[in-house]
């Protein structure tokens, strides 16, 4: 007899999580998760505006993992055929939806990411919008895969200030988690 998956399911349910993915993420896989998320919310008669907000946060946070997760197969700095690994979850608790994404990052990158995020966390809605607009005019599309705007976009769509956490794993890596609320 094997261990039951029920405990795991209940743990997720207690936190309000109704969709949780851990592992190698491809763009096509993300697209299907997005589709199924939209369908689920449509069936539960959510407003189109809420559906699109949650969907867009799922896409942005997952694309963040696809582009930037330091946990890859094969080992990092290799070919562009790398598969990136991370966790993404979507849930509903206390009348709000939330999207959480997590992935490994290099310790060297932690302070840079933390700086960007803490800045965004302290801004008002208006300030974030303004920042978004000025950054959009500055960033060159060739250098980044576009995620220069990514964090600002998620901070903008989140109805509460974004929450984030860095947990040191070893000499090289930390685990980065980001949470947005709708």
């Amino acid at each position: 007899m094997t261990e039951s998956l029920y405990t795991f399911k209940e743990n997720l349910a207690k936190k309000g999580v109704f969709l949780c993915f851990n592992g190698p993420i491809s763009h096509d896989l993300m697209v299907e998760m997005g589709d199924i998320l939209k369908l689920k919310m449509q069936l539960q008669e959510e407003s189109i505006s809420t559906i699109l907000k949650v969907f867009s946060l799922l896409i942005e946070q997952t694309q963040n993992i696809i582009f930037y997760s330091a946990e890859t197969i094969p080992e990092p700095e290799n070919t562009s055929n790398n598969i990136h690994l991370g966790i993404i979850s979507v849930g509903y608790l206390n009348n709000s939806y939330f999207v959480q994404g997590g992935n490994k990052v290099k310790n060297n990158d932690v302070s840079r990411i933390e700086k960007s995020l803490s800045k965004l966390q302290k801004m008002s809605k208006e300030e974030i919008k303004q920042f978004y607009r000025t950054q959009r005019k500055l960033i060159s599309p060739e250098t980044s895969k576009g995620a220069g705007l990514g964090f600002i976009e998620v901070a903008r769509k989140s109805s509460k200030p974004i929450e984030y956490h860095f947990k040191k794993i070893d000499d090289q890596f930390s685990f980065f988690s980001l949470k947005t609320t709708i």
Partner: protein
Amino acid sequence: MDDSLFRLKQSFDEKGIFFSFSGPISQDLIVEIGDILKHKMKLEEASKSTILKVFSLLIEQSQNIIHYSVEKIPTQKSLNDELHFGIITVGFEDGHYYVIAGNLMDNKDIDRLETKLNKIAVLDNDQLKAYYKSERKKKSDQQSKGAGLGFIEIARKACQPLEYNFEKIDRDHSYFTLKTVI
């Protein structure tokens, strides 16, 4: 934000689980999951036959969830169209890949399923093959969308007897977990 996402990742890593999905499952989603896992195993130089076995167990067990999970959202389209929820995980332990799937089921269906699984559990490969062929010849069962053969197929692909668990939740439902090892 706390480190709960990190701890979730850690618990997966500790158990050797490199892929896990909990939520509503669609055929298209399974296709993409299958693709990325094949890609990952190829990069890790698993043998072609192992990759195909894991892939087919993933598909069979996921399709079981789509067809039989009683945790679902009905759509308005037709009685046959429903969004089904379940859990599917793939891991690697002691030199073997394994697939574990879980879904909610009605207590009234347990006996029939358990009897079937108990019967399959004691058959060796040749007996399974014979059983599979005889079942396939039988008149098609209206209720089973093909999984009459499904469990036998699953047992044939696994390298050791199937492990399963029925955890009672309440008067009406239990949680069914099935583990296959390749």
